[in-house]
C-alpha cells in the first residue's frame, strides 16, 4: 500500500464537505428566509429590548414625551376659558354645562368635542347639539331644546313628551303644565302625533276636553268633562271624531245627557244615555202614547 500522505501531484479542487453542506442548506428556501428575515429581526428586537431594559430608556422616553406634550398642551392658545350655551333657557344651559363635564380652564387638545357632544345629546331635554371650540378660548355649545307638547300620565309617573314621543322631563304634577294636553294609557307615547291630530280635530269642544286615553295599546278614547267619553276606532279615528264634531255642531250632541259616544264601528255609531235620561225618555214616550201620566 502506498503511504497515505504520498506526494500527490495536485488534487482537483472540490468543495469541502462542510462547504458542500452549507451550500445545500443555503439553497433551502425556508432556511434562506429565516436567515434573511428572521435573524435581522431577532437581532433588532434583542438589541432594542436590551437597551430598554439596560438603561431604563423606556421610562426616560415616556417622561420626555410627557414633558413635551405638557408644554404644548399648556399653551395659552389652546386654553378653554368659558363655555357658552346660547339660545336656550337658563336652567337647561346650567344642565348642559354640568353634562359637558369640562373642568375649566381646560386645554382644547385634551377636550374631545365629539365626546362632549354625545354627553350633551344624552340629556333628555336636548334634541341635537353642536359643539365647537372657538379660537378665543370659548367652548360653544349650540343645543336645540326639545319642546314638550303633551303630558303623559302613565304607571311610571307623569312625563312631558315632545312631538316624537321622546321624554323631555318628568314632572310631579300635571298642574305644572296646564297649558299642555293630557294623554294617558300604556303605549300612548308612541302615538303622540296622532293624539295631537285628534286634539286638533276636537277644537270645537276644546274647553271640555279632559284628555286622550290610549285603550289596549291600539285605539283612543277622547274623555270630556261630565264623564263623557268618545270611543274612537282603531283606524279612521280622525274621520270618526270629525263626524262627532259635525253632530255637535248641528245637533249639539255633546250638550245632551250622554255618557258615551261609541264610534268604534263607523257603520253603527252608538250612544249611551245616562240613567236619568233613559227614565225621562220612558216617561215622555208613555205620555206620548196617551196613557196615564
Amino acid at each position, binding site marked *: 500500500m502506498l503511504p497515505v500522505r504520498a506526494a500527490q501531484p495536485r488534487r482537483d479542487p472540490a468543495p469541502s464537505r462542510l462547504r*458542500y453542506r452549507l451550500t445545500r442548506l443555503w439553497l433551502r428556501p425556508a432556511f434562506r428566509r429565516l436567515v434573511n428575515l428572521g435573524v435581522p429581526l431577532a437581532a433588532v428586537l434583542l438589541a432594542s429590548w436590551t437597551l430598554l431594559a439596560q438603561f431604563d430608556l423606556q421610562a426616560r422616553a415616556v417622561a420626555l414625551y410627557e414633558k413635551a406634550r405638557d408644554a404644548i398642551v399648556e399653551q395659552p392658545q389652546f386654553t378653554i376659558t368659558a363655555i357658552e350655551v346660547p339660545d336656550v333657557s337658563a336652567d337647561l344651559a346650567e344642565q348642559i354645562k354640568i353634562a359637558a363635564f369640562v373642568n375649566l380652564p381646560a386645554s382644547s387638545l385634551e377636550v374631545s368635542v365629539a365626546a362632549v357632544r354625545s354627553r350633551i345629546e344624552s340629556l333628555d331635554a336636548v334634541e341635537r347639539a353642536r359643539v365647537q371650540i372657538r379660537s378665543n378660548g370659548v367652548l360653544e355649545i349650540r343645543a336645540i331644546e326639545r319642546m314638550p307638547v303633551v303630558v303623559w300620565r302613565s304607571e311610571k309617573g307623569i312625563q312631558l313628551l315632545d312631538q316624537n314621543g321622546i321624554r323631555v322631563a318628568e314632572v310631579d304634577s300635571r298642574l305644572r303644565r296646564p297649558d299642555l294636553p293630557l294623554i294617558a294609557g300604556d303605549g300612548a307615547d308612541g302615538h303622540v302625533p296622532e293624539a295631537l291630530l285628534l286634539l286638533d280635530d276636537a277644537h270645537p269642544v276644546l274647553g271640555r276636553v279632559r284628555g286622550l286615553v290610549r285603550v289596549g295599546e291600539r285605539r283612543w278614547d277622547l274623555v270630556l268633562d261630565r264623564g263623557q267619553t268618545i270611543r274612537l276606532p282603531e283606524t279612521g279615528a280622525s274621520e270618526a271624531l270629525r263626524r262627532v264634531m259635525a253632530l255637535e255642531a248641528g245637533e249639539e250632541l255633546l250638550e245632551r245627557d250622554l255618557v258615551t259616544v261609541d264610534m268604534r264601528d263607523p257603520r253603527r255609531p252608538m250612544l249611551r244615555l245616562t240613567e236619568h235620561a233613559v227614565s225621562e225618555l220612558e216617561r215622555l214616550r208613555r205620555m206620548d202614547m196617551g196613557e196615564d201620566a
Partner: protein
Amino acid sequence: MNRHLYDLQRAMRTRRDAALRRGVIAVLDIGTTKVSCLVLQFVPEEEGEGANARPVLRQGAFRVIGAANTRSRGIAFGEITSMDECERAIRTAVQGAQKMANLRFDHVVVAFSGGRPRSYGVTGETEVENGAVTEADIGQVLAECEIPDYGHDRDAIHALPVNFCLDHRTGLTDPRGQIGRDLAVDMHLVTVARTALHNLMHCIRRCDLELAGIVAAPYATALASLIEDEQELGAACIDIGGGSTGVSIFVRRQMIYTDAVRMGGHHITSDICQGLQVSMQDAERMKTKHGGLIATGIDDRDMIELPSILGDWDHERRQISRSELIGVMRPRVEEILEEVRARLDASGFEYLPSQRIVLTGGSAQIPGLETIASHILGRQCRVGKPLRVQGLPQSATGTSFSTTVGLAMHVSCPHDEWWDFEMPQDRHGARKVVRALRWFKENW
C-alpha cells in the same frame, strides 16, 4: 431474487415518484473520465380551461435547469477505487449543478457503468386468474420466473419484462386487460457485482443525496442515442467510454442484452503514453488533438512535436509523424471492437431484423472510427449524438454526454420493471400485518 433487493428497488421507486411530484430530480453519470450531473425540472402543465384548470405533471415535459461536469477521480473501469476522491468529484459536480439551477435537489438517479454487467434471459409462466390479465397476474408471472443462480456476489439492477406471451400469442408488450389463460413472460435480468454497487450507493449516501434509481449505463446510453426506428427494429449501441465500453442491444423498444468490455479511451491514452514515452496528460492531449485511425499519405508528412518529459527546450526534442500516432492508437481500438464483436456474436445480434450499430461515448469522436467499426463489426455503423433535450447546454450535447442525457430520458419515461408490480401475496414472508390490512382493504 431476494426479498431485500426487491424492497430496495421499491424504495428507490418511491423516492423517484416523490421527486417527480416535487418536480425536481437530478441525474448523475459517474464515469471513468468524468462525473456529470443534470438537474431536471418537470414542468407541470395546465389541464382544463379557465377556472377549473389544474396542473398536471406530464413526465415527458422536462427541461434541464442545471448542468455541471467534472473530471472524475478515484474511479477505474466505472467502479470506485477511492471513496474519498470519488466523493469529492461527485460533490463538485453536484454543487456546480445546484449553483446553476439555483435549486437544491435531494434525489438523484445514477448511471453505473462498471461492475461487469451480465444479462440473463429468464422466462416465467402462470395461469391468469379470472379472464382478463390484471396487474396482479403480471406480478405473479414475474415472480414465477426462474431466477438463475448468478452468484452470491452479484445483485440485479434491472429486471425488465421484454415480452409477454398470452395463449401462444407472443409479442405483447402490455397484456393488461386482454383475455387469455396462459400468461408467459420473457424477462431480461441484468446483474452487476455487489461490492461495486454497494460502494456506489455508499458514496451517494456520503454526499447527502438520496438514491432514486440505479441504471445500467449502456441502457441509458442507448435510450439517448438510438432513434425510435432503431429501437424498434433492432440495434446495438456501443458506448466507448473512458474505462469501459458498454454494449446494449435493443429490439422492439426493449433492451434485450447488455454487456461491457473493460477497455476504453483510457487504454488508448496509456498506449500512447507508453509507446511514445510521454506523460499521461500529454498523451491525452495528443489523442484528442491529433488522434485518428486511418492513415493516409499526408499523415506521414504531418509531424507532431512531442513535449519533452524534462521540460527542456534545448536538449530533448522529438517529432513523430501522425501516422505513427495512428499506428499506436489503431490496434487498441481494433482490440476493443473485436471484443465488442465477440459480445455481439454471443448475444445473437445477427438474428435481429435490422442490425444497425450506433457508436457513442467520448471515444467515438476519434476520426475514422466509423470505418474501422464497419470493417470489424461487419455492419453499417454510425456515430450517434444524444437526442436533443430542452435546456441542455451546448457543451453537453456531444457524444460523451449520451449516458447523462439517456438518464434524463429514462427518468422522464421509465420502463416498468419487476418492482413496479406487486409481489404476489404468498411470497410475502413475515409481513402478516400488511397482508391482513390488504385483505381488509380488498374485501370492504
